[in-house]
C-alpha cells in the first residue's frame, strides 16, 4: 500500500478509536453513578485512545518511509555478484538508477547487462515485500495501540494527565525543530565542506584570488583544475552590500527620524505601511527591475558621461538592493528612536535646542547602538540576498572595486553551481557547500552581534 493510503487508514482508524473509547468510558462510568466518578472526563479517555492509535503508527510509518529506499538499495547492491559491484558512490547511483528504470519498465530488460536485469527483479520483489510488510505493521500498531488504550479506560486512571503530558511533549518537540533545523544546516554544509577541503586545500579557498570552478571533463584539457579562491566573490559581495547600505542607511535613518519626530500621526499612519511594502515585495521582482530597467539605465547614463559600464553592474544590483533594505533600516531605527525616553527630548527642548539639534545631539547618540544593530542586520540581509544579484550582477568573478563593472557574489555562485545537472561529488559541486558554510558563518556572526547590541541597548531604558 502507498504511504498516502496508510495515512488515510490512520486518519480513519483514529476517530474510530476515539469514539469507541468515548463509549466505553461512559459505559464504565454508568454503574459508578455518572461521569463525575471518573478521574477524567470521557473526552480525555477518548483523546488518549486516539493518540495511542495515531502516534506510534505515524512514527513507524515516517521512519519506514524515510529509510525504506536506502535500505532496499543497499540490499539490491549486495545481492549482485561480487565482481560487478560498483566501485564508487557515483557509479553506484548510476547503476541504481539503471536498475530502477528497468524495474519501472521505462528501460527494456533485454537492453541491459544480465546482472542489472536480475537486480531489477530483486528490487521489485523487495519493494512488494516492503510495501506489504509496512502496511501490515502500521495497521497492526494502530489497532494494538487503540486496543491498549481502550482496555485502560478505567475510572481510577487520570487520562487527562496522560493526554496533557503527550501534548506538552509535542509542543516541546515543535520548539525543538528550530534547533534541529540549525543542526541540519550545520551538518549538511559541514560534511560536504570537509569533503571539499580534501580536494582543495583550505588555504587556497580562503586566500587565493581567482575563482573559476569550471573543471574540465578530460584530465589533459587546459585549466582542468579549476580555481577556488573565494576572495573575488567576497569582495564582490562586499562591494554590492556597501552600495546597498550607502543607499539604505541614510534614506532609512532620515525617514525614520522624520516619521517619528516631525510627521503628523496621519501622515505616519499612511507612509509607514507604504514603506514597509518595499520589504514585502518578492526579491525576484527586484531582480527583474534591476536587470531589465536599472542596469540598462545605468549603462546608458554612463555612456552619456563617457564612462563604460557593463550591462550587468554591481551598481545596479546594489542600488536596487539598497531600496529593498530601506524598510529594515527605517523600522528598526524607528523602534530604537521611539524607545528613547520622552524626558530626554523634553529636557533638551527646554534648554532651547531646536528639534534637529535635539535629534542630532541627544537622541541620536542615545539610540546609536540600537541603530548600529539595525544596520548590521540589514547588512546581513544584503550579504545573503540572492535573486537580485543572480539576475543583475553577473557571473564573472572580477576582483574590482569599480561599481560599473560586473562582479559576482557568494550567493550567486552557490545558486549557479547547484542549479541544473550537477556532477556527483566533484570539487565544483562541493565548493557550493563550502561557500554556503562561509555565508552561514559570516551572517551568523553579524546576526549574533547585532541582536546582542540591540538587546543590550534596549535594556538601558526599560
Amino acid at each position: 500500500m502507498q504511504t498516502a493510503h496508510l495515512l488515510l487508514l490512520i486518519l480513519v482508524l483514529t476517530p474510530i478509536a476515539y469514539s469507541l473509547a468515548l463509549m466505553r468510558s461512559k459505559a464504565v462510568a454508568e454503574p459508578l453513578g455518572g461521569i463525575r466518578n471518573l478521574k477524567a472526563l470521557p473526552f480525555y479517555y477518548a483523546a488518549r485512545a486516539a493518540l495511542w492509535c495515531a502516534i506510534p503508527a505515524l512514527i513507524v510509518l515516517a521512519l519506514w518511509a524515510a529509510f525504506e529506499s536506502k535500505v532496499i538499495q543497499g540490499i539490491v547492491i549486495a545481492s549482485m555478484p561480487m565482481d560487478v559491484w560498483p566501485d564508487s558512490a557515483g557509479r553506484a547511483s548510476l547503476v541504481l538508477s539503471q536498475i530502477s528504470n528497468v524495474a519501472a519498465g521505462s528501460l527494456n530488460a533485454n537492453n541491459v547487462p544480465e546482472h542489472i536485469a536480475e537486480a531489477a527483479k530483486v528490487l521489485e520483489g523487495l519493494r512488494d515485500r516492503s510495501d506489504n510488510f509496512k502496511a501490515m505493521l502500521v495497521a497492526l500498531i494502530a489497532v494494538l495501540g487503540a486496543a491498549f488504550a481502550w482496555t485502560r479506560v478505567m475510572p481510577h486512571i487520570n487520562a487527562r494527565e496522560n493526554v496533557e503530558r503527550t501534548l506538552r511533549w509535542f509542543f516541546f518537540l515543535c520548539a525543538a525543530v528550530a534547533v534541529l533545523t540549525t543542526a541540519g544546516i550545520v551538518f549538511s554544509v559541514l560534511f560536504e565542506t570537509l569533503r571539499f577541503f580534501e580536494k582543495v586545500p583550505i588555504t587556497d579557498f580562503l586566500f587565493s584570488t581567482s575563482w573559476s570552478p569550471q573543471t574540465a571533463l578530460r584530465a589533459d584539457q587546459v585549466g582542468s583544475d579549476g580555481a577556488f579562491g573565494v576572495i573575488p566573490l567576497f569582495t564582490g559581495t562586499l562591494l554590492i552590500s556597501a552600495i546597498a547600505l550607502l543607499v539604505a542607511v541614510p534614506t532609512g535613518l532620515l525617514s525614520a527620524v522624520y516619521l517619528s519626530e516631525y510627521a503628523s500621526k496621519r501622515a505616519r499612519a499612511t507612509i509607514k505601511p507604504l514603506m514597509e511594502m518595499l520589504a514585502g515585495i518578492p526579491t525576484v521582482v527586484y531582480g527583474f527591475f534591476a536587470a531589465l530597467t536599472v542596469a540598462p539605465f545605468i549603462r546608458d547614463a554612463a555612456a552619456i558621461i563617457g564612462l563604460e559600464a557593463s550591462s550587468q553592474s554591481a551598481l545596479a544590483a546594489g542600488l536596487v538592493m539598497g531600496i529593498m533594505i530601506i524598510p529594515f533600516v527605517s523600522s528598526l531605527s524607528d523602534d530604537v528612536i521611539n524607545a528613547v525616553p520622552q524626558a530626554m527630548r523634553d529636557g533638551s527642548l527646554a534648554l532651547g535646542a531646536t528639534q534637529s539639534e535635539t535629534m542630532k545631539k541627544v537622541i541620536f547618540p542615545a539610540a546609536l547602538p540600537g541603530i548600529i544593530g539595525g544596520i548590521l542586520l540589514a547588512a546581513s540581509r544584503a550579504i545573503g540576498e540572492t535573486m537580485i544579484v543572480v539576475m543583475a550582477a553577473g557571473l564573472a568573478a572580477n576582483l574590482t572595486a569599480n561599481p560599473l563593472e560586473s562582479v559576482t557574489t557568494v550567493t550567486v555562485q552557490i545558486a549557479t553551481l547547484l542549479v541544473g545537472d550537477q556532477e556527483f561529488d566533484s570539487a565544483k559541486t562541493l565548493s557550493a557547500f563550502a561557500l554556503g558554510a562561509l555565508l552561514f558563518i559570516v551572517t551568523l556572526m553579524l546576526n549574533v552581534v547585532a541582536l546582542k547590541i540591540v538587546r543590550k541597548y534596549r535594556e538601558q531604558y526599560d
Partner: protein
Amino acid sequence: MTDQRSQAEIVRRSLKKRYRKERRFRVYGMVAIFIALASLVILFADIINKGHTGFIKTTVTLDVTLDSEQMYLTDPTDAEQRSMADFIAPIITALQEQIPGAESAAQTRELRALVSSYAANDISDRLRANPELLNTTETFVFQAHDQVSVYVKHADNPKYSIRLSEQQQQWVDYLQEEGVIGTSFNDTLFSRGDSREPGNAGILGAIVGSLLTMLVTLMISFPMGIAAAVYLEEFAPQNKITDFIEVNINNLAAVPSIIFGLLGLAVFISLFGMPRSVPVVGGLVLALMTLPTIIISSRAAIKAVPPSIREAAEGIGASKMQVVLHHVIPLAMPGMLTGSIIGMAQALGETAPLLLIGMVAFIVDVPEGFFDSATVLPVQIYLWASSSEQGFVELASAGIMVLLTFMITMNALAIWLRKRLERRW
C-alpha cells in the same frame, strides 16, 4: 551692559543659522521618504508598463477548409494517420485566400511564419474531438507567431527589434485592417503551463504549483509554529535548553534563504531520497524557513493575552493545559493568524531556496499532486525574465503583477484581520 548686548547679538545671529539648519534637516527627512516612496512608484509603474501587454494576445482568425486530400487524412481518429498528416497546408491555403498572389515557395514560407507553430495542433485537436468536421469549413482562432505579436504590440517601441521581413510587415498591416489579425484578452496566460513559445505560455502551472507548495508549508509551519510558541511562552522552564532554543529561533529568522535551499538539497533530496522539483520538498523547505517568523509573531500574540485571564481560569480549577487550549490560544488566534499570513506571503515570493531543490525545471504540464514535478510563480518569473525571447519579458511582468496581487491581497487580509479582531484589554 555692552557685554550682554553683544551676547544677545550673537544669539540672534546664530538663531537664523540654527533655524535654517532645522529646516534643512526637515527637508532631508522629506527627501528620504520621497526617495523611498518614489522607488516604490517607479517599480510598480515600470512593471505595469512592461507587463500590461502580457495580458493581451495576438490572434489570427481564419476560415479554414479542412480538406482531407490536402491534409493526407481520411480518419481523424487514427493516431498514426494524424501523426503523418499535414495540418499546416489548410492554414496556408486560408491565408492565401486573404492575401492573393502570395504563391511562390519563399512567400509560402513567409506566410507560414505568421501563425504560431502550435496552430497545427489546434486543427489536429479539434478534428480528433469532432471527426465529422473533415471536409467542412471551420472558423479557427490561432495564436499569431511571436514575431507578429511583437510587431503588432510594440512596432512603435524602439526597445523591441522587429524580426519580420518587409513583405510580412505589409501583410500583417493589411490583415490587421481586414480584421484577420487582432488582439484579445490573453486567456492562455491563465489556462496553460509553461511553453517554449511566449504566445502559448501561461502561468496556470506555476499558480497551481505555488498553491500546492503553500498548502504543504501552511500545514506544517502553522501548527508547529503555534505549538512551539505556546511551549516557549507557557511551559518552558527558565533553563539553558530554553535559552538555546530561543537563540536558535532568532538566528534562524535571519539566516539567508539560500542556506535553507542547501539544507533541503542535502537532507530531503540526498539523505531521504525525495524527488527533486516537487511541491512536497519545496513546501518542507519553505516551512522550515517561515517557522521562525510564525513562532516570533505567535509569541507576541500570546504575550498580549493578559495574565488575569489565565489566573481566572486557573482559579476555577483548570489545568495549565486547559488554560492554554481553552483560553490563551483562542484569544491569541487573531495575532497568530496575522503573523502566519505575513509569513506565508514571504514564502510565496521566495525563489532562491527553490532553485536549489530543482524547481527551475522546464515543466509544461499543470501539476496534479504533491509529488508531481512543479514550478512556482516566482521561479517561473525568474525563468521568463532570464529568457532571451522578447515575448517572455512581458509575460514575466504580467506574472509579477499576478504575484504582487496575491501578496497584496494576503497582506491586506492580515491587516483586515488585525483591525477586525484586535482586542484591547
